[in-house]
């Protein structure tokens, strides 16, 4: 029972808060003179209204869940990875290039590409670890700055050496990957692809890992009190490398999966423009870095985004306002009403509110 409570709570609070957020959203909508009920209906329909929309919500949630899990993983071990975006971009790039240039049958390319994505993301985040260990560069800053470098670098690769030369050739993107090495779609004509299954599988794996495995225990202890973990024989450096590699690797996998399952090529900006990494960061923070909670929050945030697109299409709420409504909803989700109210005392004891 005790074991379940925190997990249940970490899932319940966002749902509770969404209700408050919807009320606030209703106020915004009513300013535009649209029917509030109509808008929310469209918001719902755009996210879950039909199997098609549900599947695109799932597709959109895929990279968010994966990189969210990555961020949560590092966070559990006590490290803040703000570099998911760069890791994702490099992962996507590596996956695309591998799928294009590695010889062999389609599935070999696919597997190699996914591994390359993980490796690229993992290596990029290990660079930040190296700087932290060697020069005491704060992870938060280095991972943030490495994003810019990764994005610029990927932009160079696909507008220079590995540019797509078919078609109008004016585009910063790689050539299209052969159909044989695409991640299969889960349902015909729907956007959700096998990457979603990978994401769900990994979520379950992490839940189990944190509950039952030695590594999970060590990661958790390191995150809660590094000195205590070190005193008990946990090797901080090893764990730091492990968790940051896992974190970056998951973000890289998110990029790879998006490339191999959605776009079938690496397109400059296609991974950064939708703001997956930021959404993933929010999901991980909202769920307090709990893996299942992170997946649920990722899914809800993705639903919010696809729902907003649906609302845009089918009502007269201007496009710009949907961003406002999203922001308002997120603000309220972030409050975790039920939770923080119950734990206010504890928060005070814990040195205030920060993170």
């Amino acid at each position, binding site marked *: 029972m005790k074991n379940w409570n925190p997990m249940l709570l970490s899932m319940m609070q966002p749902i509770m808060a969404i209700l408050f957020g919807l009320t606030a959203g209703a106020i915004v909508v009513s300013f535009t003179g649209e029917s509030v009920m109509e808008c929310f209906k469209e918001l719902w329909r755009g996210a879950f209204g039909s199997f098609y929309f549900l599947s695109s919500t799932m597709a959109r949630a895929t990279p968010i869940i994966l990189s969210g899990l990555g961020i949560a993983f590092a966070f559990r071990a006590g490290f803040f990875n703000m570099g998911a975006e760069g890791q994702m971009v490099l992962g996507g790039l590596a996956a695309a290039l591998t799928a294009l240039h590695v010889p062999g049958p389609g599935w070999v390319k696919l597997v190699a590409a996914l591994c390359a994505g993980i490796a690229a993301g993992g290596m990029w985040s290990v660079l930040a670890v190296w700087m932290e260990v060697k020069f005491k560069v704060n992870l938060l800053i280095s991972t943030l700055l490495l994003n810019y470098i990764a994005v610029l670098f990927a932009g160079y690769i696909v507008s220079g050496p590995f540019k797509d030369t078919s078609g109008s050739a004016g585009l910063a993107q790689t050539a299209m990957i052969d159909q044989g090495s695409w991640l299969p779609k889960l349902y015909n004509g729907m956007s959700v692809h096998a990457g979603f299954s990978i994401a769900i599988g990994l979520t379950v794996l992490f839940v189990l890992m944190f509950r039952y495995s030695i590594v999970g225990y060590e990661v958790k*202890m390191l995150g809660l*009190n590094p000195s205590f973990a070190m005193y008990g024989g*946990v090797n901080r450096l090893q764990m730091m490398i492990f968790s940051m590699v896992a974190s970056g690797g998951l973000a890289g996998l998110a990029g790879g999966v998006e490339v191999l399952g959605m776009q079938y090529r690496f397109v400059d900006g296609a991974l950064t423009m939708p703001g997956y990494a930021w959404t993933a960061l929010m999901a991980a923070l909202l769920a307090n870095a709990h893996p299942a909670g992170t997946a649920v929050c990722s899914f809800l945030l993705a639903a919010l985004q696809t729902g907003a697109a649906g609302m845009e299409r089918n009502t007269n709420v201007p496009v710009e306002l949907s961003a406002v409504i999203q922001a308002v909803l997120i603000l309220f989700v972030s409050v975790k009403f039920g939770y923080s109210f119950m734990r206010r005392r504890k928060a005070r004891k814990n040195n205030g509110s920060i993170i």
Partner: protein
Amino acid sequence: MTTVLEARQITKTYGDFIANDGIDFSLHKGEIHAIVGENGAGKTTLMRMLYGMEAPTSGDIVCQGEVKRFQSPLEAIQSGIGMVFQHFMLFPTYTVAENIVIGNEPARGIWFDRKLAADRIKALCETYQLHVDPDQKVSECSLGTRQRIEILKVLYNGADIIILDEPTAVLTPLEVKELLVTIKRLAKQGKSIILITHKLHEVMEAADRVTVLRNGKVTGTLEADRTSAEEISRLMVGRELEGVARQDNKAGEPVLQVRKLVVKGANGKALLNDINFDVCAGEIVGIAGVSGNGQSELVRVLNGLIKADQGSMLLDGTDVTNLPVRRIRAAGLAHIPEDRYLWGASKDASVKENAIMGHYRKDGCHRFGLLRHKRLNQLVHGWVQSFAVKTASIHEQAQYLSGGNLQKLISAREIGQHTKCIIAAEPTRGVDLGAMEIIHRQLLRKRESGEAVLVVSSELSEMMTLSDRILVMFEGEIVGELKGKDASEEEISLLMAGGGRA
């Protein structure tokens, strides 16, 4: 005799749990009133209410004849109440003066007059005969100095009523003596003082009256000069203390051998210099010393948390010098750390997660990289029972344990490792008498079963009850060795102060 502060039928409940149950308590002007009780008896809770940090569930607080409802510590401060928390409330990066004046800074217009602050602190130091250097950074101060800073802070804010929550737990004997002298002087100057402590000899030495709490209730308020430590402890624990018996047994082969150990600090200065000693099977060796003379470093280097620059250490015949913590532990070393919140436990983890640290890699506790929860639960339950750890469940967060109970849990964990050698650093700091007995008895039992025990403590009485031999450290060196039986407090104190050097 005027009553300055009074608690009338105060009750405090946390959910179903009654932390304070109809407490009546009064503090007279100019008296030192000790409050004693087991860990979790509700002492701190009562103080938090008197200081406005918590609101009583029912009952009244009467201050200078008026019923008060403090909304915040600020209001308590304004009514002349000051509190020194056991866990220091100081900003380590600020100077002593800054820490003292904060909240009530001397200012010229909007400007913070640091010079005036320092002058005022100096004057304050003179008045109360408490000496600190106003310009020193708190992070560089010893624990004793920090304690003085806390008291000065309270005095600076003009408090007439001073609450001290276990002020002596972290101090060295010398510092304790000084502190008690200070407290008595303050009482003479008209301040009223509440002193919480687990050490009855301190109560007997300093207090005018004693209030004993047990399970949230007052079991008695006594005049200190008309009672005895035995009576107090009976009221506290609800039974007679048995005392710990020591059997004579012969020391065996050396288990832990330390040779020519040198550890250098960041600036190249030797923190430990040429340390040599053995701890044999069936022997308890005590390490005494004023804090800051290298004991912490010694413990840490033995456990692999810092690296030795020279020298070697052998554990049960194998060389474990500079091995990673895990390897040293696997080779047979257990360790009760001195700072339980920093090293010894994770407040946000559950009791069980805290208890299995260091055990989870043992045979039988894991399979295919997975933890065997059933087995571990059994283990932890066993420890909780045999060490009488008060906790609602082993899945409760460790932060809800009172300090003493947490210490019992840590001791249980480390003693339960069944290693050839155990290092116990300050094993009973902040622990009540009953619990202290349990821990001492367990350490002695280890000795009797032929294991090697190294105790590091600033508590001389503890050192003398437990140790077969006592090593005294001064400035990173071992400056003397005494037989536990023949050692006198004076002798040890002299060595600790560097008297053995010449």
